[in-house]
């Protein structure tokens, strides 16, 4: 008695999870909450969402609405506990639904096809009937050969009272396509979960010429406290070797790791250096053509990889991938950067020159001294006044203002623009090419380690196969009765397909016309 009641309860839970009603509720709540998540900006500055709410519901209602949404987790809703719960309900529903239905489907898939009784032939969607010359013994071979030729089916046969019955099926396994698709969703979710628990998603703003052996998490407390700096400096001083770093700090390695986790500092296990960063533009426009970083990876003091990465061309090493994601000017980068020039004299001799902001250098083979007076990352000229101004914060159009002196007297000067070769020539046929400022920009790298991504890809692959089977392949069955009718044969065909019945019917029609034609030919 007790046991039965218990079972009833479990059955109820089972039925709840296997129900389509739950599936509909889960679908609908995922969709509806997701919509809210696309309207409210996720992980954004509170100001922005406050403004948005004020626009939609009025200024007075905005702050309290914001508080309600924030306390419910809507500002980062795709990671909130309740959204993850709905996703888990979705997975549970999928698993239990599949287990619930699988035995029935497996039976259809595995059971061999059986001959049918006479009255069962009436209920087919595809039904054909015609008469062939000669008795069943004679026509049997012709019919089965024709079926094999047109449909590719291998027939089984059974002797009946008044003749024969031929039957066959194909594609019974295609009924599992739906389950492969459902299963693949679970595989993808599993991969995502593995990625969340064992992966790392962060960033690294790497200035030109700098080396780092860590990356930073966006969610870690990024407040640049003294402690944060102290740990970071120790780790970098020992080139990422945490054992040495913990000795430097005078703590044990495990507590160092704990502290790093707290500060969102992720040890790479190797060092990465940005040798150079560059933005290419389409001819003279400000439309970017390529963002490129020249990266090199060092492990245990040895350089192991050198690669130029672009937006769709990341660098991968030891399971950690570096993606080109942003860039910018390093604070104080211009003052500390190296201005690179190439001086080409009249006779074509070229020489590389490095200089500092505010510094001077002598043009090789002349008595001219060049002084870097000013710099603009993006120089434009006002259309009305023709006055120079800086139109962007990024290095869209770098330019240096250079004055040339001879014996202490300013001879001439002007703006030299990196992207405009016509500004490189000096009055006496000399060319001073402005190559760029090295060390003034950083490359913004997205850093990711995701051991689950291959499982996700595997799931995607399974889903593609499952969908193909589920939508474009079908389970086709055919039964043919050959009935003796005064030394002729009445052929009765019944056939079914669980998908795309018309295509199968067309095949059967071809078969029928094929058979009836040979009959006429035989006359």
């Amino acid at each position, binding site marked *: 008695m007790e046991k039965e009641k218990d079972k009833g309860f479990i059955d109820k839970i089972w039925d709840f999870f296997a129900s*389509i009603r739950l*599936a*509909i509720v889960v*679908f609908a709540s*995922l*969709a509806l909450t*997701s*919509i809210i*998540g*696309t*309207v409210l*900006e*996720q992980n954004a500055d509170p100001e922005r969402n406050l403004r948005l709410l004020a626009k939609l519901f009025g200024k007075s209602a905005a702050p309290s609405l914001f508080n309600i949404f924030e306390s419910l987790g809507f500002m980062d809703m*795709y990671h909130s506990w309740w959204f993850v719960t709905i996703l888990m309900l979705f997975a549970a529903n999928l698993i239990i639904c599949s287990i619930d239905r699988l035995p029935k489907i497996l039976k259809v898939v595995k059971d061999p096809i059986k001959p049918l009784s006479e009255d069962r032939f009436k209920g087919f969607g595809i039904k054909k009937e015609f008469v062939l010359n000669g008795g069943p013994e004679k026509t049997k071979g012709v019919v089965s050969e024709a079926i094999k030729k047109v449909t590719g089916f291998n027939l089984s046969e059974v002797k009946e009272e008044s003749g024969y019955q031929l039957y066959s099926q194909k594609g019974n396994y295609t009924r599992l396509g739906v389950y492969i698709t459902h299963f693949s969703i679970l595989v993808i979710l599993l991969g*995502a979960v593995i990625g969340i628990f064992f992966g790392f*998603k962060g960033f690294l703003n790497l200035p030109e010429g700098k080396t780092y052996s860590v990356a930073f998490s966006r969610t870690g407390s990024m407040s640049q406290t003294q402690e944060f700096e102290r740990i970071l400096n120790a780790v970098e001083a020992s080139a990422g070797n945490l054992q040495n770093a913990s000795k430097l700090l005078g703590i044990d390695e495990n507590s160092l790791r704990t502290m790093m986790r707290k500060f969102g500092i992720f040890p790479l296990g190797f060092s990465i250096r940005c040798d150079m960063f560059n933005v290419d533009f*389409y001819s003279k426009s400000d*439309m*970017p*053509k*390529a*963002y490129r970083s020249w990266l090199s990876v060092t492990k245990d003091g040895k350089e192991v990889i050198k690669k130029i990465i*672009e*937006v*769709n061309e*990341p660098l991968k090493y030891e399971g950690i*991938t570096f*993606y*080109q*994601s942003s860039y910018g000017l390093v604070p104080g980068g211009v003052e500390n950067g190296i201005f690179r020039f190439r001086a080409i004299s009249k006779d074509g001799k070229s020489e590389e020159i490095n200089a500092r902001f505010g510094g001077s250098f002598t043009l090789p083979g002349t008595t001219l001294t060049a002084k870097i007076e000013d710099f603009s990352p993006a120089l434009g000229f006002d259309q009305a006044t023709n006055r120079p101004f800086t139109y962007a914060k990024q290095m869209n159009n770098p330019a240096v203002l250079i004055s040339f002196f001879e014996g202490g007297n300013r001879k001439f000067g002007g703006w030299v623009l990196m992207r405009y070769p016509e500004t490189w020539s000096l009055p006496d046929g000399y060319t001073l090419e402005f190559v760029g400022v090295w060390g003034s920009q950083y490359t913004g790298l*997205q*850093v*990711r380690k995701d051991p689950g*991504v291959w499982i*996700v*890809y595997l799931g*995607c692959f399974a*889903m*593609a196969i499952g*969908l*193909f089977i*589920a*939508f*474009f392949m079908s389970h086709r069955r055919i039964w043919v009765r050959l009935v003796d009718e005064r030394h002729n044969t009445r052929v009765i065909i019944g056939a079914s397909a669980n998908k795309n019945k018309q295509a199968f019917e067309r095949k059967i029609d071809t078969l029928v016309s094929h058979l009836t034609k040979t009959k006429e030919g035989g006359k």
Partner: protein
Amino acid sequence: MDSSTLFGIATMAYILAMIIYIVYLAFKKPQIGIIATTITVIGFITQTFAILLRWKEFYDIGKMGILRAAPLTNLYESLVFFVWCLILGYLIIEFKYKNRSFGAFVTPIAGLALAFIDLTGMDKDIHPLVPALQSNWLLAHVMMSFIAYSTFALAFSTALMYLIIKTEKRTEPSYIFWTITMGIFIVILGAMGLDYLTYKVAIKNPDVLIKSFLFKASFFSNSTAVSLVSWIIAVAFIFLLWRYGYLLKKVISGFSLSPEILEEITYKSIAIGFPIFTLGGLIFGAIWADQAWGVYWSWDPKETWSLISWFAYAFFLHSRFLRGWKGKKIAIVAVVGFVLVIFTYLGVNLLLSGLHSYGSME
């Protein structure tokens, strides 16, 4: 001859075909039907050449290889490709079902999509690819997404026709549903057309569009009177559509289209579109995002909305297979699904921001 001239010819051909298909419906003369089909085919061939020519023009400008010169990189090009797929899908249906009446419903969608390009003053210039789009996934992802979108559009029009034929009473929920959906569609398009006629500006970016122009000539006008009149006209229009919607039923019932065929086309279009959308839209999109940004899924608005549309069509398929839903109920799901698709495609770019901002009218 350049691609834009050919696009112009194709657009004219579709609009002409639309008129002739409607004339064909009125008079039911087979010769007229043949003319309509011929003009559609001519438009289609011209458009095919136009797309190939633009591909070549893009290739010559971009110099990035043939696969990365596919003209599918902005709103204008994608709409053109959508129309191309839609007409191709229609021609296949006309050939398979030997029925031309349906043309009177599909060619207007093609015409409307092309009119939308001009009404919004969309940028038609060829722009070289920004770094994020320089990937071979662009071709596969965008092309498959739009093939799927056009199958959904076909399903939408057959489902809507099904609803129009099958609804009997004005108080019936399905009847109210289709009249209001159709009414809102027409009102929004009309309001956008009015914006364009009033301001005559080619919209350069969505922010400016939303803030300064969208519905400013009607609903959001600075003048309270204009705004009020607009709302009244919109509501009145939807009311009239509801009141006299049955007239449309008479027109469509006159076609030799049975509800069964409409239902079948709805299902088949979705059954073809759904796997293509899953693979090309969601899976290829995720793989590409993984390569470019290092996250295969980031819940950005475009991704989230495509997932919502995917849910809608998954719901369509499941309710049909498991619950045996038929008829009006499932037709409503097909209509709602396409409304979600339109929002995924246009609404997200125009109204919501996200990683996918490259698809906007820049």
